[in-house]
């Protein structure tokens, strides 16, 4: 059972990374336009500026 000492922190860390990722993506406005995002994938020529910002 000693392996739990490693496994549980690792599991929690992975979860926290996911949470941090979500909070970051929320903050950078990636959920503002869910309708448009699905079509933008198909666009070949991206706009000159970074469109995610």
């Amino acid at each position: 059972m000693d392996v739990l000492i490693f496994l549980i922190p690792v599991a929690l860390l992975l979860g926290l990374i996911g949470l941090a990722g979500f909070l970051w993506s929320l903050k950078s406005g990636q959920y503002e336009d869910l309708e448009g995002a699905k079509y933008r994938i198909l666009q070949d020529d991206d706009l000159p500026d970074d469109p995610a910002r």
Partner: protein
Amino acid sequence: MTAYERDWEAFVTLSPEGEAHMDLAVEGVTCAACMVEIERGLSAQPGIRKARLNLTSHRLAVDWTPGESTPDQVVETLSRLGYRAHPFDPAQVRERADSAGRELLRCLAVAGFAAMNIMLLSVSVWSGNATGIETETRDFFHWLSALIALPAAVYAGRPFLRSAFAAVWAKRLNMDVPIVIGVTLALFLSVTQTIQSAHHAYFESAVMLLFFLLIGRYLDHTMRRRTRAFAENIAALKAETAVTILPDGRLREVPLSKVEPGEHILVRAGERVSLDGTVLSGRSDIDQSLVTGETALASVGVGDPVYAGTMNASANLTVAVTTASGATLLDEVTRLLEAAAQAKSRHVQLADRAAALYSPLVHLAAALTFVGWWLSGAGWQPSLVVAISVLIITCPCALGLAIPAVQVVTSGLMFRAGVLLHSGDAVERLAEVDTIVFDKTGTLTLAVPEVVETAVLDDSARALAGRLALSSRHPLAAALARATQAEVPLPDAREMPGEGVCAEVEGRELRLGSATFCGLPEAQVQAALAARPGASLLVFCDGAETPVPLLVEQRVREDAAETAAALRQAGYRLAILSGDRTAPVAAVAQQLGIEDWQAELRPADKIARLEQWAATGARVLMVGDGLNDAPALAAAHVSMSPVTAVHVAQAAADAVFLGDRLAPVFEALRLSRRARAAMAQNLWFSTLYNVVAVPFAVAGFVTPLIAALAMSGSSVVVTLNALRLRLAAGSSSERV
């Protein structure tokens, strides 16, 4: 080109780096291709740094370098691409960033993370309890759960805490009070259990409860925000601006929020008066149909008051803007509106009614459980454990989702049917309606007048009349121009303000305008109007030939008769309350087969009539568009207005319907009845769930595993039941 400069500064915000930014509402965006076209078209323009269209909200954000491009060029490029756009007045868009929604999402994410990880630990404990887990390991897992659950609950529980405190402060009970009590007690109990290294802890129940409830809360918020954003787009596209006259005589177009009382504004012929005021110079006819329901034009001169929402028909007016308190009609409307809004706040939402019933019952059950176990000699601590488990299992998880889930699905369906809901509980009130009261002008009829028949003119005369009409901005002339599909105005046409237009063609003088202007005898005027009492008269005269009267009237909505019949068949009582004259109202009422109608009503009369109905127990849906309807809209049990309505009326109404058809009214009622049924089912299911679960909890059989299963199970059931509405609507919407 316009003869005045536009004050775009009010719409543009400058970033610290010196870039200009503007948000625009764009009309006509239907698909991804439009998005690509707009963004590419704008980006190709010099000076534009960034153009990004939001396909969800149909809003365009443009950044440019000042000096290299102008807002005018942006709007022009868009109109060249075929999209009408208008910038947002920043004063009207209060909350663009949606900070409330983001906070809910952040809470949701934290609660979700915590629930998953605690569940991971809890499942290990549950299976360990069956197979002989070591006490140290279990305690370790419980402490770890506490470490995750406590901060997460404090963070994710804030929306509930705030609302529960506000409710208790105001000496009310809402659904959040039992939620907060339940979660707090569950955490408290779990911590004490952990200290005593007991077999069970309820951390996962507490956090999962927050997670599910936050889903409901977020859905609710999204629905409100979506319809509000759409309503803001409509408002922006109406382009409610005013042309102010600067002291040096220059003209400047500014958003309404920038006009101060006392400023002078120019209202040109054919434009809407944008603000209340007094006429300083000029003489004109005013179409007051949106304000009073009256379809005949009223003439105004120097010193007369004019009201926002009315149409200036014939000549330019200079108007001094007054505050609302100076205008008698508006005063009355405002006063009635306030009174009506106060009366309405008494309506208690279904969810709050359920909460008011539910909280005392649940807390009583928990208290009785504690007393019962204690009296039977169980000791105070085990008794408290059982009592708290009753609270946990009855915590209104399903109740919290039962109504928002249905509201979200229904508002989505209504959106598709062309109805925008302003408030979620409008669905409940719509479902209770048994009487429908229509305003006539602009509601049963279309807001734009149309020529009744042009067959009285031969083809060449009709073409000439239409081309002549193009030279006037008078609404009657505009109706004729539309009806004849004229495109080229006659050369040298002159407009006589308040009388009509005339032009010379091949030596003959053509005249189009009032009866006196064209020399039509009074007897013929009466004869022409006898057949169509609600119509207005426009006369065309070709040289020495006899003048021809043309009737223009507001056409009844295409499907009004059909919708009225359908509503009657569905068991609704129909009535018309109008501010217009008796004859035109009678004509429309007869056409639609509505027997109960009244004309020439003032705003207060309409409210009095509504109160009479309310006193007999009737639940009235008021459908109206005018300023004179606004108090009645606010006073009625529930109200709708067409998208062409004046701002005040739309603000007072619970829902707005789009388009030229009346069918959305019927559709809204049908959908709301179905939604109401689903809400009732959900509430009954939640009750049933409690009836089954509470005895187990009281008897002390509820383990955290059972609590978790019961809670998520019941939440899924009510959500699925709400989604069922969409299936049912999907099969029937092809029929409609």
